[in-house]
């Protein structure tokens, strides 16, 4: 049965590569920075989606990191036991449990109108949907991944280290900054990597909120608030209607890229964690 796992992974990789062969052959490496995606003219460039994916993921990551660190420090150090910490921990796990389609649906009807009002105030085209809305929802969705790992890691800090610092007269803040943080830094970074992996591959919520436009925005405000597209969302939207081989295989090549990137990120993250927990 374990061999079946190897078969699945190798099969996934093989299928993605063979099916994206037509596009790899005819478009070459230039596919990755081709700026135009126009299936009608048979021109394919992945650049808008790469940018869209990176943009939403990193904005989401930047928003989520303070939250997941705060949860990790609070539940790992300040308040590791008791009903309050249990409740908070369950709430964090619940955030991960809510299906992404529900976040997307909620986003369309609640978040998008709010963002639209905000956009009218600052003077951008009030679409509501766009990179900003997608990143906000994405940020909420990935917080639990960094946080739950962080809690475990911070609890693993040996108490003699902390007690030593307290004995020298350090305040709690100083202990956290000078003892706990340096000790767990690599592990917390791994948590960030794992949430990045989640964010890159997240499909449904982003598809429903990002506005699905393959054009490249020029100004800063447009980049942040304008509609975009990520690799996953373009696959979700266009895969079923891709009617010729090159179109289809260009989409699959996006899937292949997504697969490889998330695999690498996840493996690095897991490697760091195993090394950390074994020490």
């Amino acid at each position, binding site marked *: *049965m374990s061999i079946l796992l*190897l078969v699945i992974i190798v*099969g996934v990789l093989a299928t993605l590569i063979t099916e994206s062969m037509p596009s790899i052959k005819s478009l070459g490496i230039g596919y990755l920075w081709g700026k135009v995606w126009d299936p009608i003219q048979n021109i394919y460039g992945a650049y808008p989606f790469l940018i869209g994916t990176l943009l939403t993921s990193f904005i989401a990551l930047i928003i989520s990191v303070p939250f997941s660190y705060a*949860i990790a420090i*609070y539940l790992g150090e300040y308040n590791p036991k008791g009903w309050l910490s249990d409740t908070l921990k369950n709430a964090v796990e619940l955030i991960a449990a*809510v299906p992404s389609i529900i976040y997307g649906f909620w986003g369309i009807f609640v978040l998008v109108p709010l963002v639209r009002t905000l956009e009218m105030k600052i003077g951008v085209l009030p679409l509501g949907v766009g990179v900003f809305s997608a990143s906000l929802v994405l940020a909420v969705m990935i917080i639990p991944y960094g946080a739950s790992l962080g809690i475990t890691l911070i609890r693993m800090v040996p108490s003699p280290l902390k007690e030593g610092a307290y004995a020298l007269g350090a305040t709690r803040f100083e202990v956290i900054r000078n003892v706990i943080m340096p000790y767990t830094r690599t592990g917390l970074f791994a948590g960030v990597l794992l949430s990045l992996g989640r964010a890159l591959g997240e*499909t449904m919520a982003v598809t429903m909120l990002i506005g699905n436009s393959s054009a490249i925005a020029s100004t800063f405000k447009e980049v942040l608030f304008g509609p975009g597209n990520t690799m*996953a969302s373009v696959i979700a939207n266009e895969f079923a209607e891709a009617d010729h081989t090159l179109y289809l295989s260009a989409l699959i090549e996006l899937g292949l890229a997504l697969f490889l990137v998330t695999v690498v990120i996840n493996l690095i993250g897991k490697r760091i964690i195993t090394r950390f927990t074994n020490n």
Partner: protein
Amino acid sequence: MEPKLGIRNVKSMIFKGVIIFFAFLITVPLIIVLLYIIKQGITQVNWSFLTHVPAPTGEKGGGIANALLGSFIMVMMASVVAVPVGILAGIYLSENPGTKLAYYSGLCVDILQGVPSIVVGIVVYFWVVKPLGGFSAIAGSIALAIMMLPIIIRSTEQTLKLLPDSLKEAALSLGVPYHRVIIKVIIPCGFAGILSGITLSIARIIGETAPLLFTALGNNFLTMKITGPMDSLPHVIFSYATSPYDDWHDLAWGASFILLMFVLTLNIVTKLLTRKWKIQL
């Protein structure tokens, strides 16, 4: 000179305040989302909502019976495939931790856990949908089964690793053959943990939409035919939520409410099971 103790203490207090503020701020979006779904959804749910198929465009009423049945069938079929495979692979990983095969399969589990669900959808499209010549519930459940596997494997492996070796050694020393030790001692002892992995994986996949888009597609009629397209709760939410009609949105709120209730119940069950076993999933 070090700053005065008073200032340092104040700094420490402020930091604590900031941490608490951020840590609890995160519950706000969660509560807002949950309450909104419940508020919008609960008024939609009644008996006819659960037992009728969607009404044609423009007509009032209709329900999500097709999606409920579809989700149920596909999750069942996915579990039938993924549960035995997952448990067996989990046993293998916990029983043979040092071997090369275990190392590489462990790696594969990690990879599989991180694979974006949309990629699973694409791959299953080429594995099943294309050879069979059309969208089908079978394809959907295979995609879901692939997503279930890593969760079941990891939880089985971790539960079994927690069991004391003396249990197994005692049984072996009585002359019980190895395979009977596994069936009669190891699995019953770790049963709650394994079960919690199964409920958790079902909770995960019941809300998965992306892998179903190109595999099971959707179907407006009540169907039990597993070789044809079949609807599912998340897919119904997706197609109705992105539609322009208000009564379809209402259906989608109702479906979201039902889906949320399923997910919450399954998570609570998992919680109760893991509390007994103190395993980390």
